[in-house]
């Protein structure tokens, strides 16, 4: 549905591509970064932002949270204050592109800045630079289980599809409250190959989910909730975002959370430059800094989310590796979510999923 | 009304002459009071079906003390509310010193109101309640303290200043309401049964205070009371109300001596009522045939319209007990207004004696009031009850169930 907004686009600054070549030395002033907020900010402050300021002398001003409607309001009202903002997964990026809220990325320019910063353009993953943004910390929805129930040495769940394996791994389960990820996981459990996954067969997925119903304790909605549910023994296994069990282990000494990557679903949110951003050059440089391996590794080592640079892998600590989605071996068994499909069918899929949920 | 010490307390019977005589004792009035005109005031309450006021007109002279008297629901409070600007009349006007104030808001009328239900501010102490009118007038704090203390002493609540209204007895609340209004000496005082909850002694004390204050300041007073004695003692004039109308207005003496209707006659003092029918009239007298015999009334004291003067018209004869004299000897047959009755009952009531006489059917009778002296009248014996034609009133008969109208006991 299109909003019938009175506010029309009135600012064309973003479309004026600068003529001057990318030069990291020439940058000055400040740059406004909008993140979704959270503890990661604190890590970024040390690695990413500090590095950027060292290199450019540009001051970073941060804000949060990331919100599409606010982005749109800014662009449409001509009040753009963000130079870079995060944008969430599940079709919002494409929606923003569709609504013409973003600056189209000049790939070359990005690479120039990246290389001026000492990065190697060849290390960038294909996902790293899209038309209107760069992939932000990719994350995966994987399986987490309670090692107190399924201890090491005994059979342990090895795939997300083991959610359905109630004979071997009995006990209540929890899954995410949205269709997103759940449909893919259900299809995988029903034997659909990663390659044949899209377009999703929603009805088939729902059929598979039906089988799981008697074993679902509840749906989780917030990241921390999934951990809490397993920790409290409300369920023996749950889908989870990959950084969470790692965080739980680091911060809360919860060391009994096992994970299984097989058949997990990887997705990524985006860093984008709003159309009409006041400091687009600094924004490029900021994004380029983000993709440096040291920056990605420092977040990966602390919260389990890296960046989309293959060179980052080597810098990831041994004990963090099992939890990082972009770490090669993990990445291999993941299915990458088809954002286009979700953009086109997300709403009806969610509607169908809700309907199914409400029928319980 | 400066009083001698060491003297009488308590109630007095109707003293229609007292006002006149005591007037001389008061200090001279200055012309501080306002003239008030009520012009054809009519008021129907939103939710009510009855007219609370129906074409009420009156003029109050500056410094006059006028009491509104009447049965419950007659509209007395309504008059005060219109005067104070708390209600807006459906029709009619209120003039203050000739100026139309009908739509002037209450605070600009400088009228002090003592509300029937006190309307004390529950969140203020007695002292604060009384200081309020002075504070809003920006009187200096020291003056306020003095004035309030004085007025609280006047109402004998000097030591209750720190109490909240909820911590007072009924009479104490009422006195606070009075004090709060007296404290700022308004031009016009509107008081709605301000002494109703006080015992006789305190009430008389307060009556005196009110009257003194009123005369000293020369304020115009509009007063409502149910106490006829109070009305008579205080008022220059009394307006008797019934069903939203002023039935009669005049000096207490005037109302007592010359009531214009059965209703007014029954509303003051005691009155014998004897139903009858007009039989005829001559140049001096109206003749009425009653169960007790033919009674004559002077033309002046017969309050009959021309229509009611025709023979057969139902009327009521009225005479005050103290105008009736009783003799043991049977009346001479020809004597005017001398009725032969049987003494049914003699009541010795402290200072005086009532003699109840009844006619043959024992349905109707006359009460005479006499001094405490002994006489030869005996219960059960016949006696003659005499009364002068000029003190005998004849009224058009009112329906028996007329609310509040001298309802037979």
């Amino acid at each position, binding site marked *: 549905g299109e909003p019938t907004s009175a506010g029309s686009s009135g600012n064309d600054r973003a479309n004026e591509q600068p003529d001057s070549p990318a030069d990291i030395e020439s940058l000055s002033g400040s740059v406004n970064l909008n993140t979704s907020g959270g503890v990661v900010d604190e890590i970024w402050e040390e690695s990413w932002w500090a590095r950027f300021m060292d290199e450019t002398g540009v001051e970073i001003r941060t804000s949060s949270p990331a919100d599409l409607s606010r982005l749109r309001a800014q662009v449409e009202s001509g009040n753009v204050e963000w130079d870079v903002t995060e944008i969430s997964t599940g079709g*919002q990026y494409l929606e923003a592109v569709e609504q013409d809220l973003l600056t189209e990325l000049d790939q070359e320019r990005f690479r120039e800045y990246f290389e001026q910063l000492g990065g190697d353009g060849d290390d960038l993953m294909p996902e790293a630079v899209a038309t209107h943004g760069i992939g932000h910390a990719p994350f995966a929805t994987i399986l987490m289980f309670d090692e107190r129930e399924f201890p090491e040495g005994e059979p342990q769940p090895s795939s997300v599809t083991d959610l359905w394996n109630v004979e071997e791994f009995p006990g209540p389960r929890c899954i995410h409250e949205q269709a997103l990820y759940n449909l893919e996981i259900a299809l995988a459990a029903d034997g659909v190959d990663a390659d044949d996954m899209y377009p999703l067969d929603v009805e088939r997925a729902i059929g598979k989910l039906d089988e799981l119903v008697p074993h679902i304790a509840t749906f989780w909605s917030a990241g921390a909730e999934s951990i809490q549910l397993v920790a409290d023994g409300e369920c023996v296994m749950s889908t989870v975002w990959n950084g969470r069990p790692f965080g739980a282990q680091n911060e809360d000494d919860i060391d009994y959370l096992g994970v299984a990557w097989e058949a997990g679903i990887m997705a990524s949110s985006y860093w984008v430059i709003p159309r009409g951003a006041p400091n687009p050059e600094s924004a490029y440089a900021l994004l380029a800094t983000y993709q440096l391996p040291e920056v990605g590794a420092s977040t990966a080592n602390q919260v389990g989310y890296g960046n989309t640079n293959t060179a980052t892998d080597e810098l990831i600590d041994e004990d963090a590796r099992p939890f990082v989605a972009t770490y090669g071996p993990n990445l291999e068994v993941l299915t990458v979510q088809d954002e286009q499909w979700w953009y086109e069918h997300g709403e009806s899929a969610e509607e169908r999923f809700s*309907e199914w*949920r409400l029928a319980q | 009304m400066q009083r001698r010490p060491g003297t009488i307390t308590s109630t007095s019977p109707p003293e229609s002459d007292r006002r006149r005589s005591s007037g001389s004792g008061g200090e001279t009035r200055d012309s501080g009071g306002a003239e008030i005109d009520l012009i054809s005031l009519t008021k129907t309450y939103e939710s009510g079906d009855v007219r609370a006021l129906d074409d009420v007109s009156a003029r109050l002279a500056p410094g006059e003390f006028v009491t509104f008297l009447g049965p419950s629901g007659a509209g007395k409070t309504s008059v005060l509310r219109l005067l104070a600007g708390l209600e807006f009349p459906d029709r009619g006007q209120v003039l203050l010193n000739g100026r139309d104030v009908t739509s002037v808001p209450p605070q600009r009328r400088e009228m002090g109101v003592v509300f029937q239900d006190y309307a004390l501010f529950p969140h203020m102490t007695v002292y604060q309640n009384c200081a309020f009118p002075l504070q809003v007038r920006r009187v200096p704090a020291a003056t306020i303290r003095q004035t309030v203390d004085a007025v609280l002493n006047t109402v004998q609540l000097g030591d209750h200043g720190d109490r909240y209204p909820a911590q007072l007895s009924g009479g104490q609340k009422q006195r606070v309401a009075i004090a709060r209004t007296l404290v700022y000496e308004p031009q016009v005082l509107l008081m709605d049964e301000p002494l109703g909850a006080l015992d006789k002694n305190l009430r008389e004390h307060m009556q005196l205070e009110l009257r003194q204050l009123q005369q000293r300041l020369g304020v115009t007073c509009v007063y409502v009371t149910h106490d006829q004695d109070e009305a008579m003692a205080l008022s220059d004039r009394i307006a008797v109300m019934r069903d939203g109308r002023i039935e009669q207005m005049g000096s207490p003496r005037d109302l007592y001596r010359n009531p214009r209707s059965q209703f007014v006659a029954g509303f003051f003092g005691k009155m014998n009522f004897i139903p009858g029918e007009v039989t005829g009239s001559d140049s001096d007298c109206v003749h009425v045939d009653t169960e007790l015999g033919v009674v004559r009334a002077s033309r002046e004291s017969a309050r009959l319209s021309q229509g009611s003067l025709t023979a057969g018209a139902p009327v009521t004869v009225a005479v005050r007990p103290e105008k009736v004299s009783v003799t043991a000897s049977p009346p001479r047959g020809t004597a005017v207004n001398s009725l032969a009755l049987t003494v049914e009952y003699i009541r010795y009531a402290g200072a005086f004696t009532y003699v109840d006489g009844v006619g043959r059917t024992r349905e109707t009778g006359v009460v005479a009031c006499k001094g405490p002296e002994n006489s030869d009248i005996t219960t059960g014996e016949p006696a003659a009850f005499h009364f002068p034609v000029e003190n005998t009133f004849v009224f058009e008969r009112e329906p028996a169930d007329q609310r509040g109208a001298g309802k037979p006991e």
Partner: protein
Amino acid sequence: MTPPARRFRLPRGLGFLLPALILVGAITVVPVVRIVMISFGDGLANYQELFQSGVFWSTLRITVEISVASTVVCLLLGYPFVYLITSFRENVARRFLLIVVTTFWISLIVRVYAWMVILGRNGLVNDALVGLGLVDEPLDLLFNRVSVIIGMVHYLLPYMILALYGGMVGIDRGLTVAAQTLGASPLQAFRRVYLPQSLPAVFAGSMLVFILATGFFVVPSLLGGPGEMTLSVYMERQTFFLNWGSATSSAVLLSAVSIVLFVSMDRLVGLDKLFGAVRR
């Protein structure tokens, strides 16, 4: 003869309040008008879509059910509480109020987790029950309608209490006592004399809590079972995709339903007449 308030005309001297009235009107009505306009942006299309959506209707039903239940429970708990504390001395009463209100500031999420810990399979209650041998297996206390309502009530109760307090603290208990001298039991006196006088506060408090409840999604989604999806969750989804048309139309429909609910409650309980008499 305390003069009752005038009713019809703007009270004398209150003209200067008109700007406030207009401002309040503007601040509340203008966005609403805009929103209604947006919802009719495509003609009736948005509404047609909504009417056909099974999810809308079920979430609406669930929302109303949960909100009504929470409101009722809040009332049942809050009313006696306020009734009791307003019968104490005022400073005691307000101390009680402050204690209750303290709990407000405990962030919702934290509170919801506290409930999870208390009601969970290994939570306090189940531990106690199993420990006392009352049950063999831990009970499923969590993730059902009951736990949702417990969580909602926990969140909403203080609001109900505050709203009731403001109205009930001024009610004259003397009349209740008078009713007892007339032979009414304390319960009758309460029901016939006190209760009617407290209805404006009950009305305002219920409305307030009901509204808070309908807009509320954290608790149902965290404490609810698999099927407990509320309208606000549904609407959030819609705004996720910037689907203003359907977000606004469902908002408008929810308003309509709620108003119908309140007006009919109003009529049913005969508040109309009661209010009239209490107001003086």
